[in-house]
């Protein structure tokens, strides 16, 4: 295996791992209702985000939710649905990450080990 062949999967795995972690962190924020500002979320969740100083980081996610889930505006379950959606994204990233590593086990050619 050349260095380049080794390098590419590692980069891919790192990207997917980062995506997966990111999505996983999105899930609790979604549950607190932070990603759906039209719905009153839990106060301490908001405070927590403010204390950590990461409220700004959530802006793109809020924009994403607001533009893609407009029909959830008046739904009490919006945080749960959005949580579920981000969990789905996290699962898909995880699946792709695992598959990138695991696909090397799939074999089309078996060379017998020497005894």
């Amino acid at each position, binding site marked *: 295996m050349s260095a380049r062949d080794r390098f590419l999967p590692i980069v891919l795995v790192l990207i997917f791992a980062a995506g997966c972690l990111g999505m996983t962190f999105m899930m609790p924020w979604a549950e607190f209702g932070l990603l759906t500002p039209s719905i009153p979320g839990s106060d301490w969740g908001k405070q927590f985000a403010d204390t950590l100083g990461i409220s700004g980081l959530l802006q793109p996610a809020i924009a994403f939710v607001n533009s893609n889930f407009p029909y959830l505006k008046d739904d009490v379950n919006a945080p749960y649905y959005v949580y579920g959606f981000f969990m789905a994204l996290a699962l898909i990233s995880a699946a792709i990450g695992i598959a990138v590593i695991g696909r090397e086990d799939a074999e*089309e050619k078996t060379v017998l080990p*020497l005894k």
Partner: protein
Amino acid sequence: MVETKKKTVITLICERAVDLDREMDEKGILKDAPDVTVIKFPCSGMIQPLMIEAALKAGAEGVIVCGCQIGDCYYREGNKMIRERLLGERPPGLKKTVDRRRVVALWLSRLQTKRFISEAKEFVGHLQTLNSITEAK
């Protein structure tokens, strides 16, 4: 230098795996790789390790075992079984005396004809280098 008799590579293949019907003549010899003779089975699971031993004993240069893609056996488990037998994970396995460098297994779906031909040619080349090494000794 003694002129050696031309030897063949025998392919034991599942009739549902890679499609070689248009690639070989009525004797089973591949047009693109005349060293390779194809023998068909209803399923790669029917191939006995004994048959591989017999082929090498009878003077074949090497043996290619070919089944369908792992996971896609028409008879459910045939290719997995012969794969495990070749690797010694399921009885009956190959005898210890069998030269494992002269056996290779391919798991190719019906549409992977080109892949098979190129793998077969590569294997023939591999066997030639093996022979030159043994002759040098």
